[in-house]
């Protein structure tokens, strides 16, 4: 699949879903309606970009959900009461992520097991910080997340900004190209003189960074935190990356697609409430959309191959 193809499908699925929502509820086609539809999209999109950084180097992060929950707990407590301590903790968390990347590469460990273990660690830390739901959001992040910019709702402004930044870092910088190459052929990267340990650590640090942003913005929306606040983000973020045209191997990811994938998942929930379906089906619908998109992608890929065969 060419990269142009890769972005087409996510855009299409978001457009179809959005059109369906507007068709059923024309009033959603307004500033207020869009704000409501994409309300929780920003933290999901950030978590998805974090997951994408890991999938980019052929790994998978099963601790995204507990990590975002941990960050949310830190944000609602330390970052609010003692900003400097809070910032130090979050910087330390990013350093831990980098160290994990280095450890996984140096000892050739299966990332799925290491991140699984880390999900216990982050979960434990979150419970230690906030044994029961509580805390409160720092004023500045609350103000930022509830800001009402003219014309376009905050969630969309933030998503576009995120997509642009992630696209620049991953697709337009030389570091981004080398990082994707690690996913493509780590041995070749290593033979040409790069330290794969350092590169994998870098990819993990980026994931940690975006995970931190996800937790902070989540608290900005919910105003308080608890240790289980974002557990479903692990699955949502993986689904978002795949919906966005990312692949599991070969460093073939699309940052813009990942953000769109996350928006699609966030929208799926709102879509159901417009359908007057019970919220019970919300995660089910997200699964169904994922399967549907993968099926459509298979058809696209087959057509692509057929064309290639005709030309060759």
């Amino acid at each position: 699949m060419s990269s142009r193809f890769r972005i087409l499908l996510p855009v299409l699925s978001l457009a179809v879903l959005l059109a369906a929502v507007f068709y059923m509820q024309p009033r959603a086609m307004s500033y207020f309606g869009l704000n409501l539809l994409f309300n929780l999209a920003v933290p999901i999109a950030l978590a998805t970009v974090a997951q994408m950084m890991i999938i980019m180097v052929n790994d998978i992060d099963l601790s995204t959900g507990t990590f975002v929950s941990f960050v949310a707990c830190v944000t609602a407590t330390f970052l609010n009461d003692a900003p400097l301590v809070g910032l130090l903790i979050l910087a330390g968390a990013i350093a831990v992520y980098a160290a994990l990347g280095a450890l996984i590469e140096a000892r050739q460990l299966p990332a799925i097991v290491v991140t699984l273990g880390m999900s216990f660690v982050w979960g434990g830390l979150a419970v230690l910080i906030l044994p029961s739901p509580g805390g409160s959001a720092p004023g500045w992040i609350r103000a930022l997340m509830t800001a009402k910019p003219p014309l376009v709702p905050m969630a969309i402004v933030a998503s576009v900004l995120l997509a642009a930044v992630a696209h620049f870092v991953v697709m337009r910088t030389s570091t981004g190209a080398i990082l994707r190459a690690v996913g493509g052929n780590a041995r070749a990267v290593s033979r040409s003189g790069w330290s794969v340990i350092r590169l994998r650590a870098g990819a993990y640090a980026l994931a940690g960074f975006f995970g931190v942003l996800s937790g902070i913005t989540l608290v900005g929306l919910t105003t308080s935190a608890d240790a289980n606040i974002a557990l479903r983000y692990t699955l949502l973020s993986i689904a978002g990356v795949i919906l966005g045209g990312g692949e599991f191997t070969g460093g073939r990811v699309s940052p813009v697609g990942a953000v769109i994938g996350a928006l699609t998942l966030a929208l799926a929930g709102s879509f159901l409430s417009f359908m007057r379906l019970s919220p019970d089906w919300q995660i089910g619908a997200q699964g169904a959309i994922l399967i549907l998109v993968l099926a459509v992608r298979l058809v696209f890929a087959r057509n692509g191959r057929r064309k290639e065969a005709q030309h060759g």
Partner: protein
Amino acid sequence: MADTSVNRPSFIALSRRPWFWAWVASAAAYGATLLLIDGGGGIDLIQAALTFAAFSAIVGIGQMFVITLGPGNVDLSIPATMTLAATLSLKFMGGSAGLILPGLVVAVGVGFSAGVANYLLIRMLRIPPIIATLSASFLYQSLAIWSNRGLRIKPPQALSDFTTGTLLGVPNVALVGLAVALAAWVLLERSTFGRWISAFGQNERAARLSGVPVEMVRALTFIGSAVLAGFTGYLLASFSGGAALNMGTEYLLISIAVVVIGGCSIAGGYSNVPGIWGGALFMFLIVSMLNSYGLGAGFRLMITGAIIIGIVAAASGRDPQ
């Protein structure tokens, strides 16, 4: 894998078995706990460990077969399948003792259907199993939420008594878990099918070329994992007095952890059944040890996670063969 050490039960031969260290670690955790509770309650602790380890071991065995198939093969739908099977079977039984066996059939049937659905997604969409089982688990979870409706239906009294009861001091659930493990051991070590699974994990292409029916092996493995998950859901819900929507959550992590701790190769191809039980016992005993040292839930989780990472980091230098 010709094994010449079978008739030579020396310590060194034993210690080379991949499952050996899981059992040593379990024994150490058990001893450390006993030291703290002054020797009293040792039997109770073993009974509790056997009971809870049985649930982890049964789902862990299913996951083990899947992981044996090689990189990318993980069943992420185990928690949702457990919950769905438990919810539907308890609802079906409605507390009536006459429906215990049909209820079991319902639970196993739900697992079977989930396994078939998982496999069809993998096969027809050509997506990695991890994504197929992940997306399918969303659907199963939704079905469970929808059919549960917040009601907590009690299991039939006889079934509840069975799952919490003991036979000659051994918990019934543990006996069931041991029977499943024995069957799995025969399947893995003594049957053609077991050889096929290992061959698949060691080199799928070579296995295919040498005539292993790879698609059938993959299908049966995923179906087996889901059936065991459904069965565990049935047992666990009966044991704990009803199905809960989050009852499966922790078993995603546990099912993978016991495979890793048990000395199976996470890259596939090399697995063993005794290690699954060793890993399952260890996962329970380490928590009860930390508990008895008075550590709260937060520390318990952190140390469990650190131990899992420590074990893979230490095991990575070991040759899986």
